[in-house]
């Protein structure tokens, strides 16, 4: 299964280390492959360095894609973390 949507980066400091770390954790815990696309470049969230080097700052619109049996669910959790304006209140139990 494959799901995708466009999301707006909400965090004041962009997609920084903590968010990139969480995205990797979401992909692992949902058993899906999660990708971020921006400006014709697409990276997989399993590589935190790839994600960081896209330098996604606040206000950037990115393509978020998930592949795998629980793609829809992973996509919505990831989208929420990316659009949230702060880090603190979004710890998912998974």
């Amino acid at each position, binding site marked *: 299964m494959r799901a995708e949507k466009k999301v707006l980066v909400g965090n004041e400091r962009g997609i*920084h280390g903590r968010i990139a770390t969480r995205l990797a954790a979401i992909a692992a815990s949902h058993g899906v492959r999660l990708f971020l696309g921006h400006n014709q470049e697409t990276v997989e969230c399993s590589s935190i360095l790839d994600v960081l080097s896209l330098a996604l700052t606040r*206000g950037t619109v990115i393509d978020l894609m998930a592949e795998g049996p629980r793609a829809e669910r992973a996509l919505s959790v990831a989208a929420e973390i990316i*659009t949230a*304006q702060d880090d603190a209140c979004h710890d998912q139990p998974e």
Partner: protein
Amino acid sequence: MTSPNKETNGPSSIRTLRGIGVSPGIVAATVVVLKRQTLRAGWYHLPEDHIEKEVERFAGAVQAAGDELLSLREKLAGDLADALSIIDSHLLMLRDRMLVERTIGIIRYKNVNAEWALAQALSDIKERFDQIDDVYIRERFADIKHVADRVFGLLSGRVQGPLASEDQPVILVANDFSPEDTLRMQAGNVHGFLTEKGGITSHTAIVARSLGLPAVVGIDHATSLLATGDLIILDGGSGQVILAPEPAEIQRVRESNRRDRLLADELDSYIHLVSETVDGFAVRLSSNIETLRELPAVLRFGSEGIGLFRSELDYFNNRRPPNEEQLMATYQHLLATMSPYPVTIRTLDVGGDKFFNRFPGNKAWLDRERNPALGLRSIRFSLYEQDLFRRQLRALFRASVHGRLRILLPLISAPAELRQVRAIVDEVLDDLAAKGHPVAENVEIGMMVEVPSAVVMADVFAAEVDFFAIGTNDLIQYSLAIDRGNQYVAHLYEPFHPAVLRMIRQAVEAGHACNIPVSLCGEMAGDPLCAPVLMGMGLDELSMRPAIIPKVKRLLRHCRSDELRQIAQQVLQCGDCDQVRQLLARELPGLYPREYYQG
């Protein structure tokens, strides 16, 4: 960054360095300077049959580094959540394909040793990160380097032991610490940190604060100016570092540390006493809080009310903005718990950009505000999104019957804003009355004085509100044009700037001329040097973190109001902040020897 502010003592010796104080506390100790050369064995060519062994050696070092990080993670207490997340991101970096696969690829295709291949992979990553415009993300390369250094160390057979092994207390000095370094220090004899890099939000700062150890960051060349074994005094509050202190100065710091420990016990006895001076002049000491979870602390430390409840959290806890009932539940709990003491609830104080990022709608354009501090925020946002504002006002008034409510309007800069708010309040009250909701008679509506225009026009404003609350953090930022989070100008953020002190005085006088009370809620309120001056200026209420209330109360109960007024008068005559500090350092210990540890 070092500030240009280096005092000199004698022709050549720099005695004082100034950085950014990021975790309060004063400590005198010898330093251990960590100059960590990255261990990089040179290049050597491998024979074909050694290549897979070299790949294994590298994979083993990566595995061992991962084990170290995991075991460190396990040892950490649960309340260091920030630190845990840093370790998790380091674990991901350690296993990242850009680091691991790339290094193994280089070993295999170029027939070279692991150290050289890793250095190559690292420099490729650095090249990519150097192209990033965003400073915060670009600086994450420092984390990648910490991770790689750990692998380099293991490749060279170095076992990572504790950073400081001596028995004496030490202050660690380094260019920068990896978060793991900072964490390993918690058990030992490390009493403070000093780094060349970093700002108030750096990892060192976050971890130092959670460990309760003093730390100063942003002192250029600290690792060359200091040598292991040098004795220094480090003040994690002011950011000041004294090199080669006199024995008397060291003695004073150690004595004050000892008394701090005794004081902590003694303070408990002040919790239930009235907050007034020896001659019966009362100042209300209240708390700044943002969640209901803090209420037990508020009660435990003897707070006489809530001077500032930051109402933002309810708005960011859920997927949608809160409804009236949710807000009312919070306010009702707050008022009922604190009754009969007053509870000051500040209406939503956020930037529009933050709000719409949280609840994206068709207003995402606000993301591009060039100057959020001067943008659509606080009361301006409430008057722009009036439905949200009405909802909060309705909840406030409906809760008002459960205690003593004071509504505080943030960032008021023009009388027209107050009139707009009044009109909305009247509509809300009419509507509540029509629907049969009871509302308390004695709800007070006041404003934050935190913009210079509000100070200049304080006499006009005072006639239109029931109280003033001076917000010094923003008032200082707006009047001195300083962003405290910016390491290049943070040293200019100065509560004792005479302009700030005069503005506070002006607001107090204007308020009292109209018979309205004036409170102050900013970090100044809980500062033992500032608090007596503020009391002397006639503030009716000081609002601070609950835990420091007993300390300020103890101070107040040893003061005389006429002496405080005299000191405040003298302070207001000073032409610059250094004069103010000298004056206070001279006058306060003389008047209150026990409070300033010089008796």
